[in-house]
């Protein structure tokens, strides 16, 4: 029903190209893990290795403590929810969902009952006789989920399943996925390149880049305290400043800042730049401003470094006009040392 996963030293080469370098990752029982990264970062390759569609060049994968080397997809306690759903177009929804059970030799009556139960869980019980082409994208999605979960896998692999849905439906499906995962307790490994989706559903986010794990942590950790510049940039918009050690603090284009002496990069999220806070950023002139509903998005030109632009999200009620000079402050600054970046 559910199992832990351990990936040790997994390496994947395609000819001269190394898709994955020495990946080590432990996934707890019942955890919802999201592999996040830009296209080509190796996240789908890692998922294919877990599903048994690829055998890694080196390294070992254990699911529930059992070594998966040489175990074909059919014999693994995993199922995959594919990006294009991969439903069987010639079968009814009921037969689609019951397919895995049929392969396990379950009698027609039993497997249909179980399939109905799964369709009920995803809210499609009344459509059991229909064919996949009669459904909307979101509904197909649900059928694919029901089909993958019907065989009670220990580990469900989701390959960018929400990529083809429109934004609103995607948000809704994210909530549903999370709720269903809580209910069934199966370990989920989900691949996406959408950092908002990752934060919305994950217990833990694994940020990947160029075949390596950049950062692995809860959404809060990954967003608020990124360990690398890549993670900082990938998780959302960010202001970066180059800083150098200078006495008790650091020297930056904005002048001396009271931070731990480090050579590296100072990262500030736009919502952490404002008119008050512990870190003095000096005077800046408002260049332009736009109303974004939940906040005002402002671009400031620091007086001491007029060639750079700081982006700040200020609260709605802020009364400022273009050309105003204000004193800016930073909250929760993150310093990334050079060697880590």
């Amino acid at each position, binding site marked *: 029903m559910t199992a832990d996963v351990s990936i040790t030293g997994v390496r994947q080469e395609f000819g001269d190209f190394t898709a994955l370098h020495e990946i080590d990752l432990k996934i707890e029982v019942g955890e919802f893990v999201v592999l996040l990264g830009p296209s080509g970062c190796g996240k789908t390759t890692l998922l294919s290795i877990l*599903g048994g*569609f690829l055998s890694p060049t080196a390294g070992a994968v254990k699911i529930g403590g059992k070594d998966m080397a040489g175990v*074909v*997809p*059919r014999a693994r306690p*995993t*199922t*995959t929810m*594919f*990006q*294009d759903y*991969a*439903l*069987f*177009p*010639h079968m009814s929804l009921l037969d689609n969902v019951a*397919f*895995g059970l049929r*392969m*396990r030799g379950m009698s027609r009556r039993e497997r249909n009952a179980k399939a109905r139960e799964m369709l009920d869980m995803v809210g499609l019980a009344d459509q059991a006789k229909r064919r996949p082409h009669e459904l909307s994208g979101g509904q197909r999605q649900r059928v694919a989920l029901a*089909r*993958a979960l019907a*065989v009670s896998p220990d580990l469900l692999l989701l390959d960018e399943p929400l990529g083809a849905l429109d934004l609103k439906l995607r948000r809704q499906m994210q909530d549903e996925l999370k709720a269903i995962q809580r209910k069934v307790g199966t370990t989920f490994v989900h691949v996406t390149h959408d950092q908002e989706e990752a934060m919305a559903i994950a217990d833990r986010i694994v940020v990947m880049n160029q075949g390596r794990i950049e950062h692995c942590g809860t959404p809060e950790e990954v967003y608020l305290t990124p360990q690398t510049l890549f993670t900082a940039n990938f998780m959302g918009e960010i202001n970066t400043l180059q800083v150098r050690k200078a006495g008790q603090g650091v020297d930056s284009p904005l002048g001396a800042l009271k931070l731990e002496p480090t050579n590296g990069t100072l990262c500030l999220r736009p919502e952490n730049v404002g008119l008050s806070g512990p870190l003095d950023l000096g005077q800046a002139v408002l260049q332009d401003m736009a109303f974004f509903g939940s906040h005002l998005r402002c671009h400031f030109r620091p007086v001491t470094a007029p060639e750079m632009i700081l982006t700040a999200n200020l609260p709605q009620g802020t009364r400022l006009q273009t050309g105003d000079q204000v004193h800016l402050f930073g909250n929760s600054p993150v310093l990334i040392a050079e060697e880590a970046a």
Partner: protein
Amino acid sequence: MRYLSWIYLVACFIFILLPVGVLVVFSFQDGRLPVPPFNGPTLKWYAEITSDRDLMAALFNSLLVAAISSLVALLLGFLAASGLARVVLPGSTLMRALLIAPMTVSYLIIALGLLNYFNNIGIRPSLLATGIGHVVINLPLCFAILYAAMGEHQRNALRAARDLGAKEWQVLALVSAPMLAPALGAAFFLAFTFSWDEFIIAFLLTRFDVTLPVEIWSMLRSGLSPATNAVGSLVFLVSVAVVVLLELTLFRKVGK
């Protein structure tokens, strides 16, 4: 301009269909020769050919050879296409090329090759030999049609089936074949009509039991007669029936 294009269209159809039309019309000729003038309709030639034992036996042989050889070609083509679409082997391209190659070789050459080879291994000219010959010419066709029909979508569905626990034969029988049903049907019927019409291989590889084209050829040796027209019309009718069946069932579904 408009009239011209209509005239052009009609001219094209006349050019294509006139020979067949003439064949059919003169199969109803009340006279000894299928040449103008037309002497009024009669069904006596049809009565004559349907009571001709040899001819009816040949017709049955043709149906048998066409059906069995097409099924075998379809099965082999399906398995080859499934394999080559799934795995990338060194030399996949070469293997595909080799499978399709017989299509480019003239039937006469294939027939000569088979005749030699069958002689060497002791297979006598027979319906079996002809059937094997027809598998040789139709396998490339079935393979090409089925291989082209296996797209990315199909690949993912097969992956999903394996992932859900299907064994390889179950993947092929329960997912791949039903998804390819239109292509399978098209390949089968095309192979069937090719085998049904085929003369050279059948001529060289049969002896006592012959197929219909070979029987017609031997009828023609004794000169033209409205009876040969009647046989031709029957053959044409079968071909038309297959095409119409194909249009009504498979191709309409594909269009949807």
